């Protein structure tokens, strides 16, 4: 019963967003339904989490039905409002993209689509028992996110958490955090929103939201690739590639971390970048702005991805040439190196607000950690091998992907962060254990899969000289 109510809540908020997106025709053409389902599935629970956070502050944890009531009311109001407008005024986008590579599906293709769909379905079913189990397994889930939700749930009050330094000094009415970082409250608010209707805290219902997010990301990916006129088989394989990643499965089964949600929003922004590369529309910028706001509200680390998104947006807008690229980036690189070597300027410390710092002495530890997790362990199957091969194949596929320069800039930013900046930072000691590496790669997993599929598809279609 608890689970049914949680599914009902998730459906209500997601469908209300889907209805608005559908009504405003933000996307049309092949894959539009999947894309809208993905967008609604990602944004619905997150906006409900933001709503619950506001409700918590104003009314307290007992008003857990308010977020969906507000969202449904706003959605209905928007839909009713738009029905009174002439049809041309509500069409935010034209009817789609020019068909380029649509192909008919033969019997072998249909069989392969069936096989990959079956593999995805089996994965979904094998994650389900863990997701519905009444427990929070992983460390940070019950130490940070789930703990905060549970405190609000059991006390019936919105309680702020004091810094750990006040453990021995704060009075008896205070609750003290154990971690030094004061994480944003959207994810615990979302957990509370999904548990609000139960009588006893079990940590059960929130798990469904993680499976929901993973499913929504799959829909986004399928819808995007169909929008880009890629064959259905390629779109289904892409969904399978992302869904099959062991760490993604671990973060779904062992739900309770914020990273999958960060991945969902970063994935959504990547999708929007790709769509706007084909045909830029005002809602694209609205979507990117929403994502920019949501990322740091999910997890503090979201602010670093915001930097990458702003960078990608600038590249998308100005489309600099290779010379301009070098002109813009080389001086910064030189200034960074000179600043560090001669003036001991720790710009990683400066950029991260003191959370990380330059730690060149542990560079090899970091690189060894990256190497093991990318190429030795099977955390990511062949994803990094495929990314590596696709980087090699990029010159041959460039003709097919050069329109998507904003997205490519985001991919370049992410790869530089993962294999360049992280091993140089103080976080390199955690790269070996995987605690940092896995999480950063989860955030960036969807752009990587999209990159692999697009380049591989473009490379396959290459006919001629580079």
């Amino acid at each position, binding site marked *: 019963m608890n689970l049914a109510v949680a599914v009902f809540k998730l459906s209500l908020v997601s469908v209300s967003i889907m209805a608005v997106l559908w009504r405003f025709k933000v996307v049309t053409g092949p894959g539009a339904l999947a894309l809208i389902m993905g967008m609604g599935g990602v944004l619905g629970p997150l906006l409900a989490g933001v709503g619950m956070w506001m409700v918590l502050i104003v009314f307290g944890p007992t008003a857990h039905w308010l977020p969906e009531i507000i969202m449904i009311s706003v959605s209905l109001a928007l839909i009713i409002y738009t029905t009174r407008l002439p049809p041309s005024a509500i069409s935010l986008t034209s009817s789609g993209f020019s068909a380029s590579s649509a192909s008919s599906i033969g019997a072998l293709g249909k069989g392969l689509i069936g096989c990959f769909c079956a*593999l995805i379905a089996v*994965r979904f079913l*094998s*994650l*389900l*028992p*863990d997701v*519905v*189990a*009444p*427990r*929070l*397994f*992983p*460390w940070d889930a*019950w*130490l940070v996110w*789930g*703990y905060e939700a*549970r405190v609000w749930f*059991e*006390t019936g009050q919105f309680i702020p958490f004091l810094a750990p330094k006040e*453990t*021995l*000094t704060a*009075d*008896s*009415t205070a*609750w*003290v955090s*154990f971690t030094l970082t004061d994480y944003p409250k959207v994810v615990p608010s979302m957990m509370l929103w999904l548990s609000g209707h139960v009588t006893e805290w*079990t*940590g*059960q219902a929130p798990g469904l939201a993680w499976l929901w997010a993973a499913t929504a990301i799959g829909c986004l990916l399928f819808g995007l690739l169909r929008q880009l006129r890629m064959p259905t088989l390629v779109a289904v394989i892409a969904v399978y590639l992302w869904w*099959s990643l*062991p*760490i993604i*499965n671990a*973060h779904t089964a*062992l739900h309770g*971390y914020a990273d999958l949600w960060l991945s969902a929003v970063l994935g959504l922004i990547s999708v929007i970048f790709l769509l706007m590369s084909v045909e830029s529309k005002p809602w694209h910028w609205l979507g990117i702005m929403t994502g920019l706001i949501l990322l740091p509200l999910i997890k503090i680390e979201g602010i670093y991805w915001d930097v990458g998104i702003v960078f990608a947006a600038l590249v998308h807008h100005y489309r600099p040439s290779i010379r301009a690229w070098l002109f813009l980036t080389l001086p910064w690189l030189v200034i960074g190196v000179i600043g560090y070597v001669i003036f001991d300027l720790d710009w990683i410390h400066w950029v991260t607000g003191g959370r990380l710092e330059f730690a060149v002495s542990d560079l090899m530890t970091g690189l060894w950690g990256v190497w093991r*997790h990318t*190429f*030795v*362990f*099977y*955390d990511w*199957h*062949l994803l990094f*091998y*495929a990314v590596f*091969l696709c980087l090699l194949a990029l010159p041959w596929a460039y003709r097919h992907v050069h329109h998507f320069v904003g997205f490519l800039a985001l991919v370049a930013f992410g790869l530089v962060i993962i294999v360049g900046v992280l091993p140089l930072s103080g976080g390199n000691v955690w790269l070996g254990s*995987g*605690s940092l590496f*896995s*999480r950063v790669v989860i955030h960036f997993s969807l752009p990587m899969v999209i990159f692999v599929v697009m380049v*591989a598809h473009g*490379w*396959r279609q*290459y006919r001629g000289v580079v």
Partner: protein
Amino acid sequence: MTRRLQWLGICLLTTIGCWLAWSLWVLSDAQYRGLLSPITVTADSSNWRVARGQVVQGEERLRIQGTGRDREVVVLLNMPTPLPVEAVGSVVLFTSDQDDIGADLIWSTQPQFIISGREPLIQVDASRAEARLNSESDGDQFIYFLAIQQQVFERPWSIHSVEIHPVYPDFLGLQGMLWKRIFDPRPWQHTDINYNYQQPFGLQLSLMSLALFWATGLFLVLGVWQARRGGDWRLAVVVGVLVVWVSLDIRWQSELMGRSAQAIEFLTGDHTAPWPLDEGDQAIHAFAQQLTTTHRRDEFNRVFSLGYEYEALRLRYHMAKWGVRAITPQRWSSRWTRRLEAGDLVLIVDPWDIQIQPLTNDFTANPKVRVSEVSGAFSFEGRALMSHQGFWAIMILSSIENNQ
């Protein structure tokens, strides 16, 4: 057709030849070319526990200074991961220069230390003593604790580290291990979200390398085949990557299925919500349940949980409503007890490093106790309210008392 068969035969024979050469190369090294690494525990590890004797733990060594109760020294090593008895071949103890430490290696196959087996530690050279385990078990027994027991103490000495070596296999044994590594995936059980563990004592061989080795072969075969037919060799590369990916994933799927089966078993069985994570957590959960049923939060001032990180924090989670604050070993010093005030409740979830001693003869009528950390980091007094499976609830009676 015949030429194709010849070509396939050559490929097959080359693969088998390479495999045999590789196996012999691995077996020619005493450490099996690093494929079967020993588990090393250094002196500074938090897994050591002193059961008897005067032992000081430093960064580089455990200094054995004298005997304790029963005139013996017993140093316990809580295994980082419980290991199957039959998988452990030998245990090597690295010590300070020593003629003969005259100690035994004992081990426990129970989560609580109960002696299950014993072997003498034989001095191999001045700084190394070794015990060989030739234990046979029914396959279900795991070593939870190792211990070094010295009954005749002559002079102080030091332990630098311990290496636990697996039983090294012969040629067929190696093939069996390879087969198990690839085709016998264990149910995915771990609760760590960050990465997939390499099984301790498992073959330290990357499945990815094996898969890539296979993929390269597959690319070549498919590519050459396609090129000879005038077909699209690029498709061969893409299909090669995809086939290897799916193969790795089917293996991962079988690990997930094992876990799903366990989760379904839990879901269909009787359980109380919320499910504790493991046996240790069950005890903490039961302790929290008992305390919250017999006492109310407003009877106390502040509530602290005292213990190792996992135990102290799990209690904090189970008693979220009470606003429990965890005091973990990083904070264990005499300073923190000076902050204790009358009415504070200290919940002790560490039965190993924190000792509770009654201060009165009639404990039932006057349950006053002294709480002290074994190495003397802190101590304080209070009234015992409850005890459950080695965990205690101690109420502080007066802050002045603890300042003394």
